[in-house]
């Protein structure tokens, strides 16, 4: 079968599986959580609890009294229409809230991923070429230390650093919010620059704590590749060292890092729940936190589905690009069964 077709089918199957998992979870929730929500609203205002309950249940994605299959069908068909339900916390439709939030999360994530891979690939390669030098040893040590710091600890330390340093840095890297105040959204220099500045600290928290392991494995892979016979042959053939470094060593050392890339995409999108709360960065993760805080089921399930869809799409893109780098993956020869 065509590899691309197979891969697309797999992505769609994953999406379906995730939606089903989300439904099963949501199906098991309502009773207690609806009670909880009703209690909350009734506490703050003196409305009749039954009216509140009815309005909440009418805004759930399915009728809790209906049969499992019926509920599932209404849920899936609503999702297919792009309807994720109504959020009480945001005061608007979940889909509107999240459509507006997703680009911000993706901005931070892509900044962090690109920066992290650029730095660790270059660093790992240089460390491998200078194996055993002080540069190698010092960077290995720094890499291990920074890897040991959880991303949220790094976030606190960055805020602490920015907060205690002089005003210019505070202005350059604001530790709160996602865009400069009093600047209209749009493709203006002021807005784009402001958005980038606000994304720097969250992205740095990922980058600082994530680059170490990646650089170390790049170093290991490069050292292993440097010892391969084909590199020696290439040297004996008198190929330029630039060509050897890029085509022979670099390419083969990078390929095994592919799994790390996949895992780090999922990890970053997942941990946005914590990081965006710390930086008060109104992305998808921030809304998930708000949803948990207020036990807002539609928003919680909506963020869960949206984050997973982002991961599935990102993984799909990474898979397709990877297949261009490494044609072996497409042949998919897994050998016979025993």
């Amino acid at each position, binding site marked *: 079968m065509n590899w691309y077709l197979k891969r697309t089918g797999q992505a769609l199957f994953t999406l379906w599986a995730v939606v089903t*998992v989300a439904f099963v979870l949501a199906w098991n929730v309502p009773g207690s959580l609806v009670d909880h929500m009703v209690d909350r609203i009734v506490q703050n205002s003196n409305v009749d609890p039954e009216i509140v309950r009815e309005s909440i249940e009418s805004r759930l994605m399915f009728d809790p009294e209906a049969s499992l299959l019926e509920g599932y069908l209404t849920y899936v068909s609503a999702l297919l229409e792009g309807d994720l339900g109504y959020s009480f916390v945001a005061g608007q439709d979940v889909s509107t809230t999240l459509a507006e939030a997703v680009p911000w999360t993706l901005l931070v994530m892509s900044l962090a991923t690109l920066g992290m891979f650029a730095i660790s690939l270059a660093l790992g390669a240089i460390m491998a070429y200078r194996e055993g030098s002080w540069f190698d040893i010092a960077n290995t040590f720094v890499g291990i230390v920074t890897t040991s710091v959880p991303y949220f600890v790094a976030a*606190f330390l960055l805020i602490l650093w920015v907060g205690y340093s002089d005003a210019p840095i505070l202005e350059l890297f604001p530790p709160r919010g996602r865009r400069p105040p009093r600047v209209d959204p749009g493709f203006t220099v002021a807005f784009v620059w402001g958005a980038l500045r606000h994304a720097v600290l969250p992205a740095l928290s990922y980058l600082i704590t994530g680059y170490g392991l990646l650089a170390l494995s790049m170093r290991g892979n490069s050292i292993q590749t440097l010892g391969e016979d084909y590199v020696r042959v290439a040297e004996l053939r008198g190929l330029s060292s630039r060509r050897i470094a890029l085509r022979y060593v670099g390419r083969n050392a990078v390929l095994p890092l592919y799994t790390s890339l996949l895992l780090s995409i*999922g990890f970053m999108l997942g*941990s946005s*729940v914590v990081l965006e709360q710390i930086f008060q960065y109104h992305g998808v993760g921030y809304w998930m936190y708000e949803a948990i805080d207020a036990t807002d089921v539609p928003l919680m399930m909506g963020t869960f589905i949206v984050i997973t869809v982002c991961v599935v799409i990102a993984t799909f893109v990474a898979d397709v690009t990877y297949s261009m780098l490494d044609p072996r993956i497409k042949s998919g020869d*897994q*050998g*016979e069964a025993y």
Partner: protein
Amino acid sequence: MKRTDDDAGDDDPRTDGGTGEMFGDSEITAVTRRQRARETFDESVIAPFKVAWADWRTKVALLILGGFVATALLVWLHQAGYTLLNDALRLFGSPWELEAPRSPVGITDERRSVRPFENWQYPLGTFDNGVDILSALLWATPSMLQMVLAGGVFSTAMATAVGTVSGYKGGTVESVLNTIVDIAMSIPGLPLVVVLVAIIRPSSPYVIGVLITINVWAGLARTIHSQVLSLREQSYVEASRTMGISTPQIIRTDILPNLMPYITVNFVYAARRVVYDSIALYYLGLLGGGMAENWGVMLDWAYNLYNALTVSGKAYMLLAPMVPIVALSMALILLSQGTDRLFNPRVRTRHAGETVQEDDTDREVNPPA
């Protein structure tokens, strides 16, 4: 442990040297079983420990982890009602005592936000609600280690089972298991755990540990799967297959031992994920309540409740819980970096004090540095 000559002489007078030797032989085989047990112990416990200890990374890691385990045991005993720690402290006249990290009733103003190293009754200071920071730091260790253990064991067992079976069996089994692994891998961990915890509301640390690693095993299963794919084509595996040895036994004796480095390293990564995610869950307020039972609760209090980063002079509240978090995480990283040496057979035998006949060809290719 050979039988001495006296014994042999007492029991049965020998007519000639032969029978005595025969008896001696069988006695020796009986003893070697014990010897074999000791050898296995040497090989599987003492030798790896020696190798591990020789590497500075594992040495540091084991020391830190040992400290955590010792603390956890003492605190756990305290929580169970055996106040060994406080008795010992009182004996030495220490002003500080371990106490449950909840806001004391009838709290006086001098107990609120004490700065560290000022009042030795609260060596690391207190929060605004009077909770002693040092007590809170220690209080969290037992449940943290329980979570780490449960999560590590669950994800490692799950991944090893799925990875080896799918890799070795191939065919339909492989495609089905691979699809499951792919789905599990593409569901981002923390949001799934957040939703699950919000619904299940677990309180046992073991359950929390397993919930956190509910899809962490997938990444490891993929690594193991690809390793098994190359292992199963090895000639010795093929030999076992030709001899008609059953699949489970081939997996156990031929495949699994070669996977040990991946399994241990990934146990450590799973453990690290449990540390990160459990702290995140407590920080987000999904778990726990009213008491500083986790370092994440302390971070939450410091940052969100008492604005440690915006009010000057309060940063210590936020910095204190970071110390054990980073220490534990660093110990795990160092352990994973150091353990790959454990499974290199050549390094291992050299450390066990045996002489190894290294083949010369090997030397020529890799001259000793």
